């Protein structure tokens, strides 16, 4: 990445380049872009590797717990009726604002609805936004990044300048512009959050493509007369799958948080009921006595973020054994 000396984050890349003799993969840009995803950073990678060798059992337990939790969320999303009552929106004023108990083990909200039921039914829209926007934004961003990184030249330059501009808008703000411009529906929210992810995927995957391009087997493919399209499809893209999958896994968590935050701000899709973010927002007025309304949905979002980052972390190791 050291060659594109045109954006505000270049010194960050230089740091990575200096502290890592084998730097050059765009993947190290990931923690710098996502900021908070520190565990994926380069120094942390070395540490993780040590930790993995020291205690493979402990690491595996973490992975199993994370995967189990995510599987539960997926089941909630697909067959909510099995896990909770049939109607999460049924109002029961007599049971309003009761604390966690045998009947409602996560308590009830101000309308007497079971928080647990609302959490179960809220999983579907949350995962739709998380997975949908990641697939959409990830596919577009990765393609742009890979093609730009492989072709180089004016196309790459143009794309990267555009990406820099999009990156100058902190993620949530970029989504907010589109939220402001479009009607509040679930599919528009997915679109807005997908757009916010495009520059991130493009930047990371471009870095990876640039790095893969410089490997000897690509030279060999060029020399043996393969067409550019064939080289990209057969050699470049397969070598970009691991970082793309890792980023995508982590971004699902980011997208879920953005969606919950938008709902909290009252800017979420109006048709989605129940919604984790809306639940947190509505519970805030009751936080002094009836804390469970806000806290439990917040905990679910947090656990999802942690589980996805654990999974993304391990996925990379599994997909790229030479590296992990």
């Amino acid at each position, binding site marked *: 990445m050291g060659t594109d000396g045109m954006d505000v984050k270049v010194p960050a890349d230089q740091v990575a380049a200096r502290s890592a003799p084998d730097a050059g993969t765009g993947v190290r840009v990931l923690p*710098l872009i996502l900021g*908070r995803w520190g565990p994926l950073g380069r120094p942390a990678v070395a540490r993780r590797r040590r930790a993995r060798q020291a205690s493979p059992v402990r690491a595996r337990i973490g992975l199993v717990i994370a995967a189990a939790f995510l599987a539960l969320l997926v089941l909630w999303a697909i067959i909510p009726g099995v896990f909770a009552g049939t109607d999460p929106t049924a109002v029961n004023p007599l049971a309003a604002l009761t604390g966690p108990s045998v009947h409602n083990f996560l308590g009830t909200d101000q309308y007497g609805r079971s928080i647990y039921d609302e959490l179960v039914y809220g999983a579907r829209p949350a995962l739709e936004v998380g997975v949908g926007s990641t697939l959409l934004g990830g596919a577009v961003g990765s393609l742009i990044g890979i093609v730009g990184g492989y072709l180089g030249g004016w196309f790459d330059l143009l794309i990267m300048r555009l990406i820099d501009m999009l990156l100058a808008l902190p993620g949530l*703000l970029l989504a*907010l512009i589109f939220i402001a411009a479009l009607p509040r529906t679930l599919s528009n929210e997915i679109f807005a959050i997908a757009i916010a992810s495009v520059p991130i995927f493009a930047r990371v995957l471009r870095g990876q493509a640039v790095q893969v391009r410089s490997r000897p087997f690509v030279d060999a493919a060029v020399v043996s007369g393969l067409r550019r399209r064939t080289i990209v499809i057969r050699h470049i893209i397969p070598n970009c799958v691991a970082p793309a999958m890792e980023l995508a896994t982590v971004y699902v968590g980011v997208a879920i948080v953005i969606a919950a935050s938008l709902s909290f701000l009252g800017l979420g899709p109006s048709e989605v009921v129940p919604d984790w973010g809306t639940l947190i927002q509505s519970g805030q007025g009751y*936080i002094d006595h009836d804390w469970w309304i806000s806290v439990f949905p*917040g905990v679910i*979002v947090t656990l999802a973020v*942690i589980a996805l980052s654990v999974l993304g972390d391990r996925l990379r190791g599994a997909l790229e054994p030479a590296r992990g």
Partner: protein
Amino acid sequence: MLGVVGRRIAVGIPVIIGVTAIIFFVLRVLPGNPVDIITAGAPTTPAERQDIINEFGLNKPVLAQFGSFLWGALHGNFGDSFATRLPVMSQISQQAMATVELAAAAMVLTAVLGIGLGAVSALTYGSWIDAAIRAVTLLGSSMPIILTGPLLILLLSFTVHLFPATGSGSFSQLVLPALALALFACGVIVRLVRSSMLEVKSQEFVTALRAKGVGEARIWLRHILRNALVPAVTLLGVQLGTLLSGAVVAETVFGRQGLGSLLVTGIDNKDYPMVQAIVLIIATAYIVLNIIVDVCYSLLDPRVRVQTAA
């Protein structure tokens, strides 16, 4: 030195113009008829509609509108609000200070917590303190502000009556939102400071210093921590973006005034001039602050100056 500053500014200006274009065209091209938004669906005569079109310059070609928006923005004039028909800038300047205060407080807190905890973590490497710091910061950076906020209010405002839950203006009202933002943003800095201190610790020059008889305290503070700070400063600049977009949410969570709550209201009212202005101001602040961070960085690390000059 001047070269570094000049180059960063030369790169920053087209980015800002590009960002302006993105914001302008998304908000001008995608939504419906602005006149309908301004009249908010109220019945109007064609003459009144024509007045509105003239007042907001909507009859000009889109490119000309962009030109005058850009020119106005350069002069601090972002046009009139669709909702109040008053200049957007006057509302923004009333509210901007609250956001600047919050972002600055959060930034300072992030730096102090990030570097402090990172250093303690590295010093106590392998002990339970190290493990506890790592666990807490990982949790902090995984929790969305919409959970951290209510939790802090619950714990520090309602359970232990230390700080007021909501509002803005006084210092005590600044503490909780700044803390919520910092807890979210400092985790990655803690990890970076910790791991770079551990990395620097095992370098040869540290052994040489010990052999020379330099005291442990001096080695850790003057040499190891200082070297580890260089990447941390850059990351702090990157985290600014997290803090700025986090501030939008935090203002709503803590019922503060500021650009964030103004932005949310603007989006709710489809008040596009307001949204344009605020997003542009935040993006510009982010770009400019990153330029400043880059300059600080080259001050801290002479090697960067040599590299970029070459």
